[in-house]
């Protein structure tokens, strides 16, 4: 397994460059999942989007936005965690969180890539989209925010941030002989971690972090505006959409980060770099965001049942007691239980990583459910003219593509872990 050993003096840290059987198993599964997704997308491309469960709203009684758009919103939401945590660490000097900073940034980049991919998959003419979205960009469309701010600006600045904060490690690794040394030389790009360079990089990342935080609010809000500004869709039009998007983005992102951090800690035995303090901090942050979001949910339900208009009532009934009730209450439970559990751990000060991982996974299921409920019901049940009520059930092709997206994400993270330390290396004390 470790052929390289004889040729280098010292193995690279954190299993970088050494491919274990376990890694091959994970990558094999992820590759299989990605392949299923690619097949699904090819079928969709070949037949047209008739292969999906989506249909036209109105006389066709369908939903023209479905699982794909839900996943766009979800993945862009997950990206929240990384860069927020990274920026907070940088701005407030949270030393004990340094261990999760890089994986958080990686999570942001991967999630944004998946979100962008999901947008392209959802387009009827993906190639035209890649050209026309930039060539004929219209800032008046809320989609402009999603494409240009989220996918371009946000992704680009996150990549720059990830790169800048990884350069010291690249320089350190480039100093040692290894198979991957040429890569680290290019990665470091002349950076040698001198005090001068370090000071400059710290200055740049500080201002970048400061610039990214507002960009983040704008980007996630713009995704909420895609729905919240549509007066013709009961259930969408509302002031709460943008802030709720930001908060739920944080919930799913932090949840993901907890799961990833626990995995890395376990697999790489990084117990001292990713300490309990990091988990406690993330757990408290997640709890706070969950309670804010649950407050939004209560406000939403109350507004929907107190004195709704006829059209709002149709959506509210479908959500609370009708066709979508299982998904709605299931999602609420998947968000409420972790909130209570985290609160219990916070009160008793007994944090259990196992439970936190379960909660992190659960809130993500809840987040996916809530995203779906924002997208679908307002189309099937939200017609203002007397069209009959519609239905939407995702097709196998859509499920395959979504599986492919998740698998691709796992593949990207597993690949990164074998090229570069996912936990920031300890600073060499001179």
């Amino acid at each position, binding site marked *: 397994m470790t052929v390289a050993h004889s040729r280098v003096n010292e193995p690279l840290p954190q299993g970088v460059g050494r491919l274990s059987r376990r890694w091959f198993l994970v990558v094999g599964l992820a590759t299989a999942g990605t392949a299923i997704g690619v097949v699904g997308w090819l079928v969709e491309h070949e*037949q*047209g*989007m*008739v292969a999906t469960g*989506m*249909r*036209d*709203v*109105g*006389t*066709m*009684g*369908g939903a*023209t*936005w479905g699982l794909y758009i839900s996943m766009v919103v979800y993945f862009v939401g997950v990206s929240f965690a990384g860069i927020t945590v990274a920026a907070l660490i940088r701005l407030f000097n949270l030393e004990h969180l340094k261990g999760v900073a890089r994986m958080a940034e990686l999570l942001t980049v991967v999630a944004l890539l998946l979100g962008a991919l999901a947008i392209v998959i*959802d*387009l*009827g*003419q*993906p190639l*035209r*989209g890649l050209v*026309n*979205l930039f*060539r*004929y*960009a*219209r800032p*008046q*469309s*809320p*989609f*402009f925010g999603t*494409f240009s701010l989220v996918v371009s600006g946000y992704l680009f600045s996150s990549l720059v941030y990830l790169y800048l904060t990884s350069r010291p490690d690249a320089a350190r690794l480039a100093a040692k002989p290894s198979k991957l040394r040429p890569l680290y030389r290019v990665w470091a790009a002349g950076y040698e971690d001198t005090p001068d360079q370090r000071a400059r990089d710290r200055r740049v990342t500080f201002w970048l972090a400061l610039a990214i935080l507002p960009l983040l609010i704008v980007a996630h809000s713009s995704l909420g505006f*895609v729905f919240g500004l*549509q*007066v*013709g*869709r009961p259930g969408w039009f509302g002031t709460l959409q943008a802030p709720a998007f930001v908060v739920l983005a944080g919930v799913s992102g932090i949840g993901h980060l907890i799961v990833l951090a626990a995995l890395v800690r376990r697999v790489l035995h990084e117990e001292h770099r990713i300490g309990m303090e990091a988990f406690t901090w993330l757990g408290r942050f997640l709890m706070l965001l969950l309670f804010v979001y649950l407050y939004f949910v209560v406000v939403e339900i109350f507004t929907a049942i107190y004195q709704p208009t*006829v*059209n709002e009532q149709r959506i509210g009934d479908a959500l609370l007691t009708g066709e979508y009730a299982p998904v709605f209450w299931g999602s609420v439970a998947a968000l409420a239980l972790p909130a209570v559990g985290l609160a219990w751990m916070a009160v008793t000060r007994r944090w259990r990583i196992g439970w936190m991982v379960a909660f992190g996974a659960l809130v993500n299921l809840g987040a996916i459910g809530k995203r779906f409920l924002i997208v679908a019901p307002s*189309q099937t049940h939200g*017609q*203002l*003219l*007397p*069209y*009959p009520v*519609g239905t939407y059930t995702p097709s196998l092709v859509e499920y395959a593509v979504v599986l492919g997206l998740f698998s691709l994400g796992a593949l990207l993270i597993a690949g990164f872990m074998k090229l570069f330390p996912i936990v920031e290396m300890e600073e060499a004390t001179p």
Partner: protein
Amino acid sequence: MTRYAMAVDLNRCQGCRACVEACKIENNTPNAVFWMHVFRLEEGEFPNTKMTFLPRPCQHCNNAPCVKVCPVGARYKREDGLVLTDFDRCIGCRYCEVACPYGVNFFNWRNPEEAWGEYQIPFDDPDLASVTGGAVPPYKNPDHDLRHGPEQRLTSGSAHFKGVIEKCTFCVHRVEQGMLPACVDTCPVQALRFGDVEDEDSPISRFLRDKESFQLLEELGTDPSVVYVGGNPPSSHAREIERPLTGV
């Protein structure tokens, strides 16, 4: 300036749906796609029920939500009031469809050559081909491949490309030749009228003069170009008597 509009006389409409058929034939719209749709609505409880009919073309709004949200400017409003789709530019994100409160947009879910389903008639049979001249339906108006308007954009007809949004064009290819939209031309009881509302002496202006009228979902501020006279907006208790037609 010209400003096209449509007037729908609900006193006259008898729900025959000749306009729906005319639209399908003129624009070759795919299966389950109805650029022109006529609601047949039932209101009240038996035995006190009432049937009403409500034709619903694209409303060609003057403050069109679909135009606002299009991320690439494929959906646009012409100077003469027509709201059209540039089929060459549309990327198929379907944002216009979710933004439209009237449900008039239709997506090309299938490849164009499969859009009309399977014909049961053997058109390649030599005997039949000698009669049809080898043409296979849907017979398509060649004007649909022309570019229209001062902008010269591909905006008329349907099923040009897979994965592109389409909707009622007010028959731009006919209007530009001085003809009426197919639905208006076909209506056997003149329930539909079309013309230039800026011109005080046009038939539609004279028809609308001194008549009470309403627009669909006026409260949304979309300001539709389709004006209804001789009836009431559909009440929230109105029931469509048809099921959704899903088989694209």
